[in-house]
């Protein structure tokens, strides 16, 4: 017995010594974006429209609910009507993108709690502000959400059905928002949220600001004979397609998302051989990994255009997950990577 224990202890010690975390994992290159990122972020974080007389309450809102069905890789949409008795004053967003939009268009004293992901800097552009302000709840802490006594909870189409059901049982008003994957759908959701919370002019102002900033960004992009073909490749070998926010980012900056070009709809796993066949000009990999080094040292990929030119770049996760007005920041960041060399 003692022999087995000694062997076990030795292996655990060996394992702990060997389990040193990667030191230089995923350093993100210092870049100069076409638009001033700090300024752009500030502008997108607080938007107020022209002061208008408050709309009538109760109100009826007709809208189209659009959701992505991951099983069939297709969109489904239906016309719906929402009836709201009074202006919501205690609002809780259940997703990061929703929190980011509300942070911009809704008076902040009306936001009574935030989802944990909104406080995670790897997922949220307002993480530091949310942490300062709080309170923060975990996605499954429905009781906590009910305890805050909100008069409106914004859920999204992929929020857990248990969570939605519990809110319903507790008679907490909730609203299920649809697809957020493209800048157009984000603008639709912003306008809808503005209507629901009674901040239509702020919502309209944010949409106008997005359009203005996209125009400014496009003007600053270099003219090219052929668009740059970009691929996002993650640790599991997955590549995003047409319905991804990465595709929308590529469209904003005039690049081609290779995954979508090759017929991928949501996400699909490809091997190195397929990557070589599709041969992108630029490969984007998530930060905090050593994927760039792995790709650069892979012999099969040594013939790939992106590898030969060293055009493999780390991008922090927050830029790749953006599904709010901050998608513009992602576009700005990635535009700089693919159109200019890092400094």
């Amino acid at each position, binding site marked *: 017995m003692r022999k*087995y224990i000694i062997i076990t202890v030795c*292996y655990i010690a060996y394992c702990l010594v060997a389990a040193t975390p990667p030191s230089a994992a995923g350093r993100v290159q210092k870049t100069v974006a076409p638009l001033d990122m700090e300024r752009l972020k500030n502008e997108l974080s607080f938007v107020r429209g022209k002061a208008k007389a408050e709309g009538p309450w109760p109100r009826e809102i007709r809208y189209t609910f659009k959701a992505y069905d991951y099983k069939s890789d297709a969109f489904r949409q239906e016309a719906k009507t929402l009836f709201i008795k009074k202006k919501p004053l205690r609002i809780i967003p259940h997703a990061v993108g929703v929190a980011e939009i509300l942070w911009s268009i809704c008076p902040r004293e009306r936001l009574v709690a935030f989802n944990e992901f909104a406080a995670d800097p790897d997922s949220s552009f307002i993480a530091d502000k949310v942490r300062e302000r709080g309170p923060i709840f975990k996605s499954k802490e429905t009781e906590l959400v009910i305890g805050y006594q909100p008069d409106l909870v914004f859920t999204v189409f992929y929020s857990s059905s248990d969570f939605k059901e519990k809110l319903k049982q507790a008679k907490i008003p909730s609203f299920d928002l649809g697809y957020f994957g493209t800048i157009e759908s984000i603008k639709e959701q912003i306008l809808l949220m503005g209507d629901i919370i009674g901040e239509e002019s702020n919502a309209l102002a944010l949409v106008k600001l997005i359009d203005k900033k996209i125009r400014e960004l496009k003007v600053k992009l270099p003219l090219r004979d052929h668009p740059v073909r970009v691929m996002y490749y993650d640790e599991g070998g997955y590549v995003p397609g047409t319905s991804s926010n990465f595709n929308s980012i590529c469209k904003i900056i005039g690049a081609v998302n290779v995954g979508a070009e090759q017929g991928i709809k949501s996400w699909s796993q*490809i*091997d190195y051989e397929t990557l070589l066949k599709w041969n992108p000009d630029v490969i984007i990999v998530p930060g905090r990994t050593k994927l760039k080094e792995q790709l650069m040292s892979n012999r099969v990929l040594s013939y790939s255009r992106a590898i030969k030119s060293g055009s493999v770049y780390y991008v922090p996760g927050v830029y790749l997950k953006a599904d709010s007005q901050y998608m513009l920041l992602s576009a700005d960041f990635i535009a700089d990577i693919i159109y200019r060399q890092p400094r």
Partner: protein
Amino acid sequence: MSSGSWSISVSHVPIIILSKLGLYAGAINDVEATIVWDGRLPRFLVALLVGFSLGGAGTIMQGIFKNPMASPGVMGIDSGAALGAVLAIYLGLASGSLIALPFAAIIFSILTLVMVFAIATSRGRTSISTLLLAGIALNLVLGALTSFVITLSTREFDVGRVIVNWLMGDLNNRSWEHVNIVIPTTIIALLGTLYFAKDLNVLMLGEETAANLGVNIKRARNWLLLFSSIETGGAIAVSGVIGFVGLVAPHIMRSLVGPDNRKLIFFSGLLAAVFIIYADLFVRLIVAVDLKVGIVTSMLGGPFFLYLIVKHRKQFEYM
């Protein structure tokens, strides 16, 4: 090896391999050569070696435990390897180094083996039934810990996806580094088990008979368990959890080559290897759907195993 997303002529494949081995001096296409030599050949070899390991380990486990339902995972080795691998992915070690994941899987599979033996051994004696029970109990504990890590990883969508893929058995992007990991475990274990195969034949007659025939039961059994654990750990370390082949292959080969373990270990390994190679080929060719090797082996192996059970019901009753 001519099949894949990059079209390569069947006739080019042997020429490329001969050329890389220095046996052909003619001109070859560099891109095709790299794809075959550094992409498809390592993947093929990993599938082959994993198949040999799992088929061989399954044969040993069924022989030692005298149980047709025994498989390489019966002692919790695959659950241990899975926990090690999942931890390596979750802690970010796997993204730092290509060998971190297999290394963690092997360490945890060996740790599991040591724990199973420590639990089942009392005063220098290891009971076979206690080994089996300890294996089942550890399987549950390690499975629960793996589920816990998966739960934690759902915060990071990308990490969660890598973990789930690995647990489904995945041979995507396997390289020579993976071959180098699984070659020694497979060869050492195969040679070791073939050395003890005759003893395993006698052990299957019952411990008393084996002892009367001069077999050192404890030594033979412990070495066989060690070898099968090494090959299971090595295989899972490079391929993830591939189910059913270790269970089904020995059954099929037993009906074809007979119960002699000296032949059965090798041929079960060979059949499992062929099965995994074709399952992987299927996965590579069906690019439109994200299939995994482990899913294909279970989907094909499960119904086939049921067919065997129905066909040989009587035979199983006497096992």
